[in-house]
């Protein structure tokens, strides 16, 4: 009986030692992988900060103003003016007869006769 106990304990110790070594090696492998990933992250962050700086540089207001001026005939961009503010009642809203957003409907376009007060919409 006692002999069996000794053998069992010895086997248990060997099994645990095997497990512990395996865990140890796995941990070391994870640490290596982790440090590689964090090096990658660091590199990517550096790239990101360079890209952000470049984005900010390319989007500086003076350059955008020059670009807007150079491409005026194509884009026709002008500074915002006070006349461009509208009141909500000046906006064309969908007529009340339309189904709510997301509900399945058969028609794709809007039929003009839905528009109230004879106003054309859109």
């Amino acid at each position, binding site marked *: 009986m006692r002999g069996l106990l000794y053998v069992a304990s010895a086997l248990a110790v060997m099994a645990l030692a095997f497990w512990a070594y395996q865990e140890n090696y796995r941990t070391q492998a994870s640490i290596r992988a982790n440090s590689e990933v964090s090096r990658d992250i660091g590199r990517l962050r*550096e790239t990101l900060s360079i890209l952000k700086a470049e984005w900010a540089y390319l989007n500086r207001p003076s350059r955008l103003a020059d670009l807007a001026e150079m491409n005026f005939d194509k884009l026709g961009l002008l500074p915002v003016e006070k006349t461009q503010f509208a009141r909500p009642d000046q906006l064309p809203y969908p007529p009340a007869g339309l189904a709510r957003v997301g509900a399945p409907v058969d028609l794709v376009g809007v039929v003009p006769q839905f528009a109230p007060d004879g106003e054309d919409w859109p």
Partner: protein
Amino acid sequence: MIRTPLRPLARILKAREDGEDPGLIERENRRKRRDADRDRKRLRAQGRLLVLGLCFFAAYATIGVRMGILANVEPAEPKVASAGQQIVTQRADITDRNGRILATNLVTRSLYAQPHLMVEPERAARELAALFPEEMDEERLRGWFTGERKFIWLRRQMSPEQMQAVHDIGEPGLLFGPREMRLYPNGPLAAHILGGSRFEKEDVNAAEVIGTAGVEKAFDEYLRDPSQGGAPLALSLDMTVQSAAREVLGGGMRLMNARGAAAVLMDVHSGEVISMLSLPDFDPNDRPRPLASGNDPSESPLFNRAVQGVYELGSVFKIFAVAQAMELGLVNPDTMIDTKGPLVWGRYRIRDFHDYGPSLSVKNVIVESSNIGTAHIAMDIGAERQEDFLASLGFTTPTQIEMVEAPTGKPLLPPKWSEISTMTISYGHGLSASPLHLAAAYSTIVNGGTRVHPTLVKQAGPQNGERVISEQTSRAAVDMLRAVVTEGTASFGDVVGYEVAGKTGSADKPKPTGGYYKDRVIATFASTFPASDPKYVLIVTLDEGEDTIGSMPRRTAGWTAVPVAAAMIERIAPLLGLRPAVEPSQEAALIPANL
């Protein structure tokens, strides 16, 4: 185990035969047994002590060895920690209120040489000099590379293209070190606010970047603090507004032939400076050197007119005297004030720009900008009360704005606040303050009467400072300022839909030798919009501007600063998201009569 009997029969019998006492035998045996027992126990105790000692030894030895190892190995960063990777740059970014980058870092390379590693020093010198013809001289490089020196800095920063070109020389003695440099992608846009930065301690592998002026220096510790985790510093500036304002102000300055210009746009409730400009400006990426001592520092583009420039700002101060008099109950907007001129006090004579007749109402004193009328009101207030009131508006101390230059913008006060000082200060002479002071004071007057401190850091809400004037007085003051634009000296400032209210001020520049120049004017327009519910204050100051369109050069603010400010509001207000308003009818704007 076989126990020895206490009374072994053989020995007892033998003892009895010999006539000895058998009890002795028993006693001796008992003693022997006791001794054996004692020896066994001692042995066991000694064994235990030994084991325990060994345990202690092992424990202390482990601790000792570990301490020795810790003390002797090079410190290393913990590899397993995962939270430490937030910081990639040593200095946090600065952004505007919408998160657009105003200052950031860029990793570049520096170039250095180690001549003892060189293979062909002469070819390296020749090719390097060809790459950088402006800053490197072949003869000198050859002298360095073939000399005794072991280490030479060649260039602080290099672009990737330049670095590749140096790589292509193929010389192992030319080496690169990483250099994190500060980049201001918008160039001169917010130059005075950002300030600038430079390298402090330099090493092959890194260099310390420190702020030299402006926000960069004021927040130097914050920006370099690793515990912030690289979170950017959000300023109150709006880059789009700043850019539009700079464009318009720059155009206005050229048009009016001004030597310099400054503008401050401030939120009247939160005290946030949305835009602050001082022209001429500079590129913080290539900050110019300060002027040699002895020159006037205000000649340098580094000089921030909005914060550091203290000027006698002229008639824009009149509203303070009138607001205080209304607050004290001395006058109401319709009280008639004596404006017979000139007003003589000792050897001083106070004149008006025109003769406004024998008397004007308080409102018209502001609208027509009468020095004499304001001086009369100030005399009613008295020196002491005036000083206290101007102090509560912030005119006696430097502003607390978060820039290192703030303490240099200290207002110039009269050495003795006499009665004549009281009179001249009431119309803006004898007390010099910066445009930023004026912006803060106007914000306090128009926002309902609570004190506002200007700030460059994005705020969460209104400041709700201490009350300086009542809401009724504030309302009445705004209505008078509105009347200045609709019927007074600032008629060019009326931007349809934005209900501009404001006050002009044209002050002759003081000569360094004493007295005033006749043809050099600091023209200021202090404005607020929209008048029905003031949200922003805009101060525009032109230094020696003149309008030369007519036959006579016109230098008063109404002809110079006001049109520029109006153009700025026209551009800026839509960017701020202000919807142009239909002006409320005059009845709705009336103030209660119990003032």
